[in-house]
């Protein structure tokens, strides 16, 4: 069997086996093996990336074709790595074989989407991924899963209509052929010749793809499913869910650029220095950053906080894609990688906390730093990486993104991006303060640290966060290979964009130097003594330990009050009302049409005869 087929189908087969052999020990081993195979092969296939590896299954109804190129190897790497980490963590948090089957099926769906070489395979694996992840959420909560499933199937069906229109006109699903056809179309539009697709149709196809990939990437108006879906599922699966599955939306947008980019650019014309259709994506991405960030800060539940933060981080990627230059596209890809790494790490940390303490809201957590040192260290790495502190990968990707946006002098997008990273820092303070520091509630005293499997998973992701942070050149080289030309210069440790340089190694050295100096001062100089928690807050009037001193609830109450007006506009309520309205319409329709009396049914027949008589004559 060809490697590509093995990568795609290994998790699915492993999941099915794990589901059938429902024995506690064996099921985990099969599952982890199933997730390890794609990671192993992804590494192995590194040399053969441009070797034009392909694989096809003829299913009679359709031909499923897979192919490997530089772009989808990059996404394959992300998917396999974070997927493997999440499955490893699932070993301890996995409740029953039901979850093993659908977690691995969604991994297989994601890898299938990345490796697909034609639109139909892309769609089929997109549906498998949606269905599997839906079943993971259904296991926990019906309302959240129903909302998630309906929105994502709505997106999938939008894509299906666009796909069908392309197939109807061009008669093929294959990416390469569509690309050529669209190039010809672009020239035809340029020279005002007649085209296969009319202007209206190409805009319709663009909008349908925008909806389809927007839903999956959690773009602003369509993001309502993400917070419930990420929080209402097995937390270690949430790492894969937000880290990898949202990347399929990003991959979809890039596909949209590759397939129809030139056509749409010429068709719809430019806007400031980017294309009009690109700017729509970027602007919506910017809105997602702001909305996601603000809402994240106001959350009381730890899972919801990271769900919203994951949405806002995705906004960065969308802005990168929307700007549309080679540099911004590379920035988006870079940030996709770093987002997958630190978001995956964060959700694994949340999984560990929830697994150990059983609590999910900030109010009953706190002071876990002493009790869970290893997890705290991992959380520290993740916080630095998300906030964009230099030595870690988060900074490198955000820096390239900022440079890309500013170099295209797009003030509005630049403002949004900067605002986003500020807000990012805000909700991270909230998280660190409420969970790690402050006063530990009495019932959390005997909390143990992370179990081995989760610790290993977290360590892997943290390691990558650090390595790629210190040596961003590794990633830059891969990105240049995708685009074929030297967009981000510099060697292993230095990123040189021509108008800006970032020397990761130098900053690391300064950082270590700083820490050493701080260490010396700490141990030698100031008589540092442990200060009991009660001392720091009540300006020395007598207070006892059982009085809760730390502000864990409503950390950002003032922010909530200022945003009160904006918080009333919630798209979640809008979709809910639409659903309820359709259901009432269905109720009225049903009672009115099928009203039970034979005579009215006979009248329906007479009406149809009348229509035949009038229309037929």
């Amino acid at each position, binding site marked *: 069997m060809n490697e590509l087929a093995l990568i795609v189908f290994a998790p699915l087969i492993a999941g099915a086996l794990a589901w059938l052999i429902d024995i506690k020990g064996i099921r985990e081993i099969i599952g982890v093996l199933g997730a390890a195979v794609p990671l192993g092969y992804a590494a192995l296939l590194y040399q053969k990336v441009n070797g034009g590896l392909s694989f096809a299954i*003829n*299913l*009679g*109804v*359709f031909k499923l074709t897979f192919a490997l190129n530089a772009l989808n190897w990059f996404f394959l790497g992300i998917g396999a790595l974070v997927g493997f980490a999440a499955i490893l963590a699932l070993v301890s948090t996995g409740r029953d074989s039901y979850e093993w089957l659908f977690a691995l099926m969604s991994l297989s769906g994601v890898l299938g989407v990345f490796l697909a070489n034609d639109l*139909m395979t892309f769609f*089929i*694996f997109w*549906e*498998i991924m949606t*269905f599997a992840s839906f079943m993971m959420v*259904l*296991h926990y909560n*019906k309302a959240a*899963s*129903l909302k998630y*499933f*309906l929105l994502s*199937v*709505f997106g999938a*069906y939008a894509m*299906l*209509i666009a796909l*069908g*229109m392309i*197939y*109807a006109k061009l008669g093929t699903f294959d990416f390469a052929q569509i690309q050529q056809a669209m190039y010809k179309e672009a020239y035809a539009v340029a020279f005002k010749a007649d085209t296969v697709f009319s202007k209206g149709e190409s805009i319709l196809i663009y909008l349908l793809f925008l909806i389809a990939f927007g839903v999956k990437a959690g773009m602003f108006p369509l993001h309502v499913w993400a917070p419930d879906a990420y929080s209402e599922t097995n937390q270690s699966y949430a790492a894969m869910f937000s880290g990898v599955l949202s990347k399929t939306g990003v991959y979809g947008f890039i596909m949209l650029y590759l397939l129809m980019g030139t056509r749409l650019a010429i068709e719809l014309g430019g806007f400031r220095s980017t294309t009009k259709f690109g700017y729509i994506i970027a602007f919506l991405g910017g809105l997602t950053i702001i909305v996601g960030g603000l809402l994240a800060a106001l959350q009381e539940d730890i899972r919801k906080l990271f769900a919203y933060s994951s949405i806002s981080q995705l906004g960065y990627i969308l802005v990168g894609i929307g700007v549309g230059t080679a540099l911004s596209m590379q920035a988006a890809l870079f940030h996709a990688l770093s987002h997958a790494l630190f978001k995956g790490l964060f959700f694994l940390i949340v999984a560990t906390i929830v697994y150990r303490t059983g609590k999910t809201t900030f109010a009953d957590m706190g002071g876990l730093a002493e009790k869970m040192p290893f997890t705290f260290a991992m959380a520290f790495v993740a916080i630095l990486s998300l906030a964009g502190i230099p030595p870690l990968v988060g900074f490198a990707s955000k820096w390239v993104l900022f440079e890309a946006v500013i170099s295209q002098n797009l003030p509005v997008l630049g403002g949004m991006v900067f605002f986003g990273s500020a807000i990012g820092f805000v909700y991270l303070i909230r998280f660190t303060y409420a969970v790690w520091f402050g006063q530990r509630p009495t019932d959390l005293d005997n909390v143990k640290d992370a179990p081995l499997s989760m610790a290993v998973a977290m360590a892997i992701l943290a390691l990558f966060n650090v390595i790629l942070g210190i040596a961003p050149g590794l990633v830059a080289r891969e990105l240049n290979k995708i685009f074929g030309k030297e967009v981000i210069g510099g060697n292993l440790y230095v990123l040189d964009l021509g108008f800006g340089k970032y020397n990761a190694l130098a900053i690391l050295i300064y950082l270590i130097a700083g820490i050493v100096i701080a260490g010396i001062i700490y141990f030698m100089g100031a008589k540092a003594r442990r200060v009991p928690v009660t001392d720091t807050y009540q300006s020395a009037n007598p207070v006892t330990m059982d009085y809760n001193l730390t502000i864990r609830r409503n950390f950002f109450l003032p922010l909530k009050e200022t945003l009160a007006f904006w918080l009333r506009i919630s798209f979640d309520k809008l979709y809910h009302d639409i659903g309820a309205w*359709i*259901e009432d*319409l*269905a*109720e009225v*329709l*049903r009672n009115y*049409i*099928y009203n*039970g009396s*034979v005579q*009215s*049914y*006979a009248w*329906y*027949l007479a*009406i*149809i*005869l009348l*229509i*035949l008589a009038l*229309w*037929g*004559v």
Partner: protein
Amino acid sequence: MSQYASLLIALPLFGAFFIPILKRISKSAVMPFLVLVTLIQTGIAAWVFNEVYITGKPIIIMAGGFRPPIGINLYIGHFAALFVLVIAVTSLLMTIFSFKAVSVEPKDKYAMLFLLLMLGATGMISTGDIFNLFVFMEITAISAYALIAYNKTGEASEAALKYIVLGGIGSSFFLVGVALIYGSLGTLNMAHIAQLAHLVNPTVAKAGLALLIFGLAVEAEQFPLNAWAPDAYQEAPHPVTAMFSAFVVKASLYAMGRVIYILSAVEGWSSILRLLIILGTLTVIIGEMSALRQNNVKRMFAYSSIAQVGLIAVGLALGTESGVSASVFHMFNHAIVKALMFLAVGYVAVELGGTEINKFEGLGKRMPVTAFAITVGAISIIGIPLFNIFWSKMQLILAALNAQYTWMVALILGASLVEATYYIRLIHTIWFKGEGEKVKESSVLALVMLLLVALIIVIGIYPEPFWNVMQKAGSDIFNVAQYIKNVPLMGVSP
């Protein structure tokens, strides 16, 4: 040798007539005899299936030895061979289910009506003569009237009454259509009509075609004409409902498709087709919407089955070969899935005494195999890859988009979103809600259900061999020129 395929019609008839005699010999031997007859019928159908698919040529059965258009001929082409097998297998499974599901007394009468329902559907699918199609349609309809009212409850009689009145009107107007066609052409044989279709005067042709399709549309449950269907499905005995939705409706759908394509040379053809597509789309939408807030699960499945039938009708009325093959594939898949689901729902009703949704709470713990069967059926109906309905639904949608019906496809996809909602609510009620003590499930029915589930998954994973069969069956309906060549028409001098 091929004329022995006429046993497909003779055997169930012989069985049905033999039951009153058998009843005198030993009352308890009736049901096993029923299983025996359906078993032999499956055997013959399987033999006919591979005979037609190996030689590639259809079997023409000439009743009475007269060549068409003089005598009546049975045209068992690719489609008929496939679906006669589907009918035989479904009837076999339902006879096994009838042992447990039918407790109302005159069981020998039930067995007779059961066989004759199967006969009617088989006849409708294989006949090659319009009036013979009417006779077999009436056999199916009247045995369906009797079987629906079989439980002798008030509601069952009401459902049967509705079906009789609407079915009666439909078949009367169908006969007016036959009279018009015969009046202008002088022949009743389908192939002969197809040959002479272009000679028909336009107004007569349009009116005749419209009336024929109207008559068949009542049986094939198109939008306003299917008001009888939900009640009939709900009140009929469980095996009958499964048979009904699995192949009885398909037989009239096939008949509609056949009538459309043999009269394709008629002048006002495309306008009637567009009307049929509008009706089909309305059927899908109204069917799905009405199932949304159903608290009787059997009625919910009835509405969902009506919606899928509407989708098939749209596929048939597209007028392209890919559309017809896709709708044939959807008929096949839908027959399997709906047979499984109505079997499962029926079995739940038999064990827990009712099909209201609260009986389904915690079904996962009480009857795991049945719950698993319903879940697989529901998931495959929603249209998830790795299950069989996905492929045929995809082909239907692509065929519709190919024929520039983008708006229709958007509406149909919106309707299948609605369908996903109520199926997911059902799955959630079954698995994650409510408690209940374990009910011992009969191993035979569990085996039957698992067999159907396996078939669904096999088609879902590797549809290629099935798709080749479906394409041949689709072209059997669509390609009328080939149909005329296959039937050995005697040159009747006008």
